[in-house]
């Protein structure tokens, strides 16, 4: 269990007055409070540290004990019994907030001071902490809405993943976070989706993009080709004289539009014209003849 220099955490001298401690704590709390740093784990960690430091240094009794035994906390065992008594009387500390629980003091703090103190009255009811989780899916998995059962903190949650969910998108499941404090409502569960794409298609929201190779003769003379779409193959007519990188839009052959059942984006096909290589003598002769005609 490492010693924690609470003065250093708050950036104050050991001789700091109560007012200086308060001022330093408030300044840092405003900077690192989870409400102003949503989803920032580093800020969350820092906030816990400054909270803990403040809890010790703002209480003259705790500060005295810390100053006396801080570096040799093991020798503070004689305080344990008295602290245990206090611990059993202390109320639940602070609020549970977005992504963390302030009751998580360091082992060092727990061994020195037992449980935390109280701030705005121990009976205040607060919403439980929000849980954050991530779910990795393949692009193919989200072409259709699907049901999944997730286990979050030991609870099974049946989840409907709507077709067309975006990579990096976060959805909120109400009331599936941590339990509320003092009878407050439960927090929410936030699930962030990581969508892996190992298909031939590139995706921009509901539109899909794919490149299709086209042989020289079809590009010149036109013809029918078969191309892959996300839900099967389609026949496509190629116009005579098609240029390289020509784009063709296949309406409604893209990806499902998020939360709009039955609506699909478009599929954009880009033609890559393949010039023949390793020509035979006869082919060279014929191409030369064509060249002369032009």
């Amino acid at each position: 269990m490492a010693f924690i220099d609470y003065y250093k955490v708050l950036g104050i001298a050991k001789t700091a007055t109560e007012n200086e401690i308060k001022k330093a704590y408030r300044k840092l709390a405003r900077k690192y409070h989870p409400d102003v740093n949503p989803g920032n784990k580093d800020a969350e960690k820092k906030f816990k540290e400054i909270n803990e430091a403040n809890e010790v240094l703002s209480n003259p009794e705790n500060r005295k004990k810390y100053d006396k035994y801080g570096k040799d906390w093991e020798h503070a065992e004689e305080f344990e019994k008295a602290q245990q008594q206090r611990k059993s009387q202390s109320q639940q500390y602070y609020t549970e907030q977005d992504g963390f629980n302030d009751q998580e003091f360091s082992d060092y703090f727990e061994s020195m001071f037992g449980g935390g103190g109280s701030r705005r009255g121990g009976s205040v009811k607060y919403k439980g902490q929000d849980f954050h989780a991530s779910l990795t899916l393949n692009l193919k998995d989200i072409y259709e809405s699907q049901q999944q059962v997730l286990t979050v903190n030991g609870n099974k949650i049946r989840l409907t993943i709507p077709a067309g969910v975006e990579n990096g998108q976060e959805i909120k499941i109400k009331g599936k976070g941590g339990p509320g404090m003092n009878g407050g409502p439960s927090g929410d569960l936030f699930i962030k989706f990581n969508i892996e794409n190992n298909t031939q298609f590139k995706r921009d929201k509901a539109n899909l993009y794919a490149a299709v190779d086209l042989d020289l003769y079809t590009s010149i003379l036109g013809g029918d080709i078969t191309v892959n779409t996300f839900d099967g193959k389609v026949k496509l007519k190629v116009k005579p004289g098609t240029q390289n990188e020509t784009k063709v839009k296949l309406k409604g052959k893209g990806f499902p539009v998020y939360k709009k059942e039955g609506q699909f984006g478009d599929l954009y096909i880009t033609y890559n014209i393949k010039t023949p290589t390793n020509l035979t003598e006869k082919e060279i002769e014929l191409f030369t003849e064509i060249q002369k005609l032009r």
Partner: protein
Amino acid sequence: MSVQNLILIETLCPHYEIEISFFEDLSNHGLITIETIEERQFIHQDDISELEKMIRLYFELNVNLEGIDIVLNLLQKEKEMKEELNMLRNRLKLYEGE
């Protein structure tokens, strides 16, 4: 108007240990919307999470109501920018590997 999904402010005051005037101040600053039905004041249950954030900012960080407005606006902007960044990252993938 139905009171479904609305929470009576009177019940929230002891819940959060705050005065009703605090809700009025929040409303006067445009930070919350108070629905008045038959002379009883409610807030929508979907606004509870934001309300709690405001309570914490006010009582724990000593941010005044004008400050809360600024903080919430900046957080909203940050959220929008994160979403835009995510969208642009996804779009960038269209051009990667070309």
